[in-house]
């Protein structure tokens, strides 16, 4: 894998390629449309590279399994769609608590419930942040093309390892199933991050959940002699619950802080703005493609429009959007749902820019024409 190779791949397959490139050596999961191809790809590729694949009895088990593997030292990933993502929520919260790096892919189909299993949606955007009970940090990324899927899968692993947190990769069915040409860079051109591990000599004075300066405690593999404890209960630096109020606050502040102190590193977005925009289309996932197309179209007609592509959905790009709202008149948020991330945009815009949505929730796509119409609609 030391030479670039060009392939025609589906987004789901690009997750597999990205995972393998990032050093994934463990997959556990349960099949579900439209994410099954990810499991199938790993089932084939992992053992061929000395890694492990296991199909579990359900999604709950798949999530538990990758957290166990992660603690044992693996770079672990699972993939599912809405119904399975709902089932994973409890163990996802556990992973956040014990700070187990891992990647959870959700190839979104139309919900709620069984919904439209083979149609695209961006309906689980808010669930990615709020699906598990209690406050908690989360990182969620969403690609808009097959090669971005590869890239963001690598990024997902890197962020997971760096910040000791599960990272959610939100594809939509379109990105998951569409085929595009993708050039996979040679292994040595990729930046791969691995979790920080404690030194063997630190064994005697080791606190697995210590408040280190960067708030991210080093993480030993099981079986390397650290003999430490992890729990879903609130705990202090030793990993054990003491039942003290201060511990709870300290833990939550650290868990949030390790993410919030590094927003620049975590929030990835792209934009095409000239600085004089009247209207900006802010989109993510496959919808970005129509946004770009529409903006290019209206610009030719002299309309001052621009686009923003969010690659990181959570944490939300508060600062960026706040500044954007101060500069432009209107922000359009096209979404394949009834209006989810638009709530965040409205919150942050705080009345400084008008915010309108374009929404489809019937399994069909938002077209460039839809976006053009909305751009022109209020001019």
């Amino acid at each position: 894998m030391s030479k670039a190779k060009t392939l025609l791949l589906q987004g789901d397959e690009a997750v597999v390629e990205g995972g393998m490139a990032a050093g994934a050596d463990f997959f556990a999961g349960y099949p579900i449309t439209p994410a099954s191809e990810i499991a199938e790809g790993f089932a084939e590729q992992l053992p061929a590279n000395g890694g492990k694949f296991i199909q579990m009895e359900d999604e709950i088990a798949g999530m538990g399994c990758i957290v166990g593997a992660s603690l044992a030292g693996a770079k672990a990933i699972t993939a599912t769609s809405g119904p399975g993502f709902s089932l994973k929520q409890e163990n996802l919260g556990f992973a956040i608590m014990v700070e187990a790096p891992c990647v959870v892919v959700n190839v979104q189909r139309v919900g709620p419930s069984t919904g439209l299993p083979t149609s695209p949606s961006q309906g689980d955007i808010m669930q990615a942040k709020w699906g598990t009970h209690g406050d908690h940090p989360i990182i969620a990324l969403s690609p808009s093309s097959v090669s971005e899927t590869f890239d963001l899968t690598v990024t997902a692993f890197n962020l997971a390892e760096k910040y000791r947190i599960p990272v959610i990769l939100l594809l939509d069915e379109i990105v998951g199933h569409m085929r595009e040409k993708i050039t996979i860079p040679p292994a040595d051109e990729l930046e791969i991050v691995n979790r920080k591990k404690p030194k063997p000599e630190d064994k005697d004075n080791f606190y697995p959940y210590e408040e280190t300066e960067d708030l991210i405690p080093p993480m030993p593999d099981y079986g390397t002699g650290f003999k430490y404890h992890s729990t879903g209960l609130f705990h202090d630096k030793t990993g054990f619950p003491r039942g003290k109020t201060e511990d709870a606050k300290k833990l939550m502040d650290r868990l949030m802080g390790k993410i919030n102190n590094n927003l620049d590193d975590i929030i990835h977005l792209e934009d095409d703005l000239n600085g004089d925009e009247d209207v900006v289309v802010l989109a993510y996932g496959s919808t970005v493609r129509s946004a770009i197309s529409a903006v290019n179209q209206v610009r030719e007609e002299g309309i001052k429009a621009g686009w923003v592509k969010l690659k990181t959905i959570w944490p939300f790009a508060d600062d960026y959007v706040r500044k954007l709202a101060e500069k432009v008149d209107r922000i359009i948020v096209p979404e394949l749902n009834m209006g989810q991330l638009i709530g965040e945009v409205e919150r942050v815009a705080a009345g400084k820019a008008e915010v309108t949505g374009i929404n489809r929730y019937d399994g069909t796509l938002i077209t460039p024409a839809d976006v053009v119409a909305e751009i022109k609609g209020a001019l």
Partner: protein
Amino acid sequence: MDVNIDKYLRQDKMPHIWCPGCGHGTVLGSFVRAFDQSGLDQEKTVVISGIGCSGRASGYLNFDTLHVTHGRALTFATGVKMANPELNVIVMTGDGDGAAIGGNHLIHSSRRNIDITVVLFNNNIYGMTGGQFSPMTPTGDTATTSPYGNIDQNFDLCELAKSSGATFVGRGASYQPRKMIKLIKEGLLHKGFAFIETLTQCPVNYGKRNMIGGARDMLKWQDEHLVPDKKYEKMDPEEREGLISTGVLYQVSKEEYTDKYQQVINNVMAGESNE
């Protein structure tokens, strides 16, 4: 006993939080003694437990330990074992944790015959949450959620594990610590999925409510109802009525899951390099 059990206990976490007379401590004691006798490497051992009084066991044990969500210990354990088959992986669970919410993982882990040793603390009740009935609460007994008597049948967990594919199945009891130590030791040394049910008393939330009494009375009850497996096998069904057999109830040797997977890896990688 000539073992330094201190080595396996996190001294600073003791005394444990279990109630006076709770049998969980006896099971824990049997486990550490069994572990010592097994000769397994403490540093290469991971103990995983779910939620419940029994789930607290992992916190007292001086290994890599993981205290997970309710009912899911086996799923995490499977991940640990798959990721690093060199580790000894032990699951500690309760009758609620392991047989109610966690029942599916129990049968599927059995089916896979993955090399994990399960110690299930069966106190016939949900202890930690204050005495609701469990799938192991005998029919007719009262619990906070069966104030008029439990109408559910209960499982024979050993049968269940066996019929799901476990290759080592045994039952121990807090009244028979010596036998339990031996049983757990054999389970630890068994290559494949080893399921060990241990009968343990919850005087607070089961014994007192069901007129059996406190810890001492509950041990007397065990004394009256336990039969060694060998003897049990020879009894006819009527004689067996109400009696419980202890010991190794079933053991066969079958290829283990992570070994099989390693074989797949070897084959595929060999195949690839031959190309």
